[in-house]
């Protein structure tokens, strides 16, 4: 910092030599390219090339052992005819439709609750982040224990208040919702922190002004607060949607897709296609389809909700 201040004190010296020679400019170019080079090599090798390769492999039949065979659109046709593919797609869309609004609105509720001048706010925020910072695999195992039909503590509580135990993870009716509960629980804190940051940018005077005008708490929230944080809330919804579509760790650990196909979510099925059945062509085709779905869903969210957000903020 001392250096920074020192440099600012001598602008007169720089103004004199502002003209940068062509040689020096070229030196800056070279330096620029060299500085981004490692980063860019990583990008080309593990991002750009694989994206193109995935599209290419999706047109082949390949088990990793024998050389890939070009099959045109056969993978796409076969997948669209496959029952489990549609089940996994349906599961994932249903999971996302439930997860995103529940998680984001619940987070909004808690963020509003926490958005007071509390001395222990830092501590509360940190505690809410606890599940987020733990690995999903570990979280999955802990909840498997809680959900255990015979010895799990949740069923114990249920029995105690007169209900019968639920086969949380072993029944086709409830398994997907059990994973959903865990997912909502794990990432709730992340969304709370994000939305809390947005709430704290709302200037205090606006609340005062609204209160003077006689608005009650509910009105203040929906007429003053929410419009101001709606861009970030909207961003939160979009990111949440993109991430929920890709859920893998929890179903992989907790259910492996079962019972039946109840929790066979898209990415899990993709992984199983690739590394269990060694159908690389099918797996890559699913990757391409997933990408297209996410792009379409993002576009739709911007089309139908983005406009409202702009209207609210202007």
């Amino acid at each position, binding site marked *: 910092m001392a250096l920074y201040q020192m440099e600012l004190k001598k602008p007169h010296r720089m103004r004199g030599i502002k003209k940068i020679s062509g040689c020096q400019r070229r030196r800056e170019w070279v330096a620029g390219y060299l500085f981004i080079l490692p980063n*860019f090599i990583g990008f080309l090798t593990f991002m750009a090339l694989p994206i193109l390769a995935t599209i290419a492999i999706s047109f082949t039949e390949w088990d*990793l052992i024998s050389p890939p065979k070009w099959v045109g659109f056969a993978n796409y046709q076969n997948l669209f005819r496959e029952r489990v593919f549609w089940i996994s797609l349906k599961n994932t869309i249903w999971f996302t439709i439930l997860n995103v609004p529940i998680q984001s609105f619940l987070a909004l509720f808690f963020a509003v*609750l926490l958005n007071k001048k509390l001395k222990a706010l830092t501590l509360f925020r940190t505690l809410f982040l606890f599940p987020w910072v733990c*690995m999903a695999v570990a979280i999955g195992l802990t909840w498997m224990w809680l959900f255990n039909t015979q010895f799990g503590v949740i069923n114990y509580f249920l029995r105690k208040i007169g209900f019968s135990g639920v086969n949380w993870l072993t029944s086709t009716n409830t398994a997907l919702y059990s994973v959903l509960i865990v997912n909502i629980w794990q990432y709730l804190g992340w969304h709370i922190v994000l939305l809390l940051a947005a709430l704290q940018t709302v200037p205090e005077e606006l609340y005062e002004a609204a209160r003077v005008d006689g608005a009650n708490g509910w009105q203040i929230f929906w007429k003053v607060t929410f419009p101001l944080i709606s861009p970030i809330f909207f961003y939160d919804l979009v990111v949440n949607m993109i991430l929920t579509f890709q859920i893998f*760790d929890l179903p992989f650990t907790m259910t492996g897709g079962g019972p039946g196909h109840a929790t066979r979510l898209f990415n899990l099925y993709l992984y199983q296609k690739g590394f269990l059945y060694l159908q690389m062509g099918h797996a890559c085709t699913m990757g391409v389809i997933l990408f297209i779905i996410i792009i379409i869903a993002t576009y739709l969210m911007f089309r139908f909700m983005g406009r409202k957000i702009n209207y609210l903020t202007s």
Partner: protein
Amino acid sequence: MNPKGKTRLKNIGLYVCIILILLVYLFPIMWQISTSLKESKEVFSDYNFIPKKITWENYRVAWTQFNVKRYLFNTIVVSFAITCGTLVFCSMAGYAYGQLNFPGKNILFFLFLSTLMVPVTVTLIPAYIIILTFNWGDTYWGLIMPYFFGSALGTFLMRQFYMSIPKDLSEAATIDGAGYLQIWWSIMLPMSKPALMTLGVMTLVLHWNNLIWPLVITHSPQLKVLAVGLSDFRLYRTIQWNSMMAAVMIATAPMLIILMTAQRFFIKGIQLQGVSR
């Protein structure tokens, strides 16, 4: 009642309310701690929150029998190597994008940034094959290299930071005869410590917890990271839940400690992701 007393009462009510919510919210983690300290016969018989007899035996079983020792070592090696690489290469690239001028800068940057939306599984299989062709399958190299050169988000965060530093500063240093590498190393890096901390803790947590890539790239037991090693328990018929919870504790405690000691950098990291877009 006077207004001051009223707000005070309101505040106490709020505190009680939040603490109750937190108790419910964190109950799974508390139950996990409780189970990890119980003796086997108590695990299946009682639902006491405080164990009748606290035992550390489960941690010993997890540490040696479940081989969590080895998994922990691998996880530390891999996640710290990736974090170091990310810090160096993202700050280098961020400096170039944020402070230097060169043709095609913006196109290259947005090309890079556009990959933020790409799902992991889209690049998974080709990346796996690329690693195999380098002969890095089932090695530390294979675990580390795909993430070693930095992430799009990291470069973005660093660029945002360096853009906020006035260019006069480095221009003055150039005139004084400093090379770009020297400017980056001795002026830019020390100034960007908070940004580096934020990027560092976020990257560390992400790769400490990463499952799918290590799952795909490693097979041998000596190379398993915690996420892969723990996920193996799904294959067991009967699970010793108390030792299992001890293993879970060992796997998650380091990140919880880092969260508690560096919480403001985590908060900053999450906020930046929201505000900057």
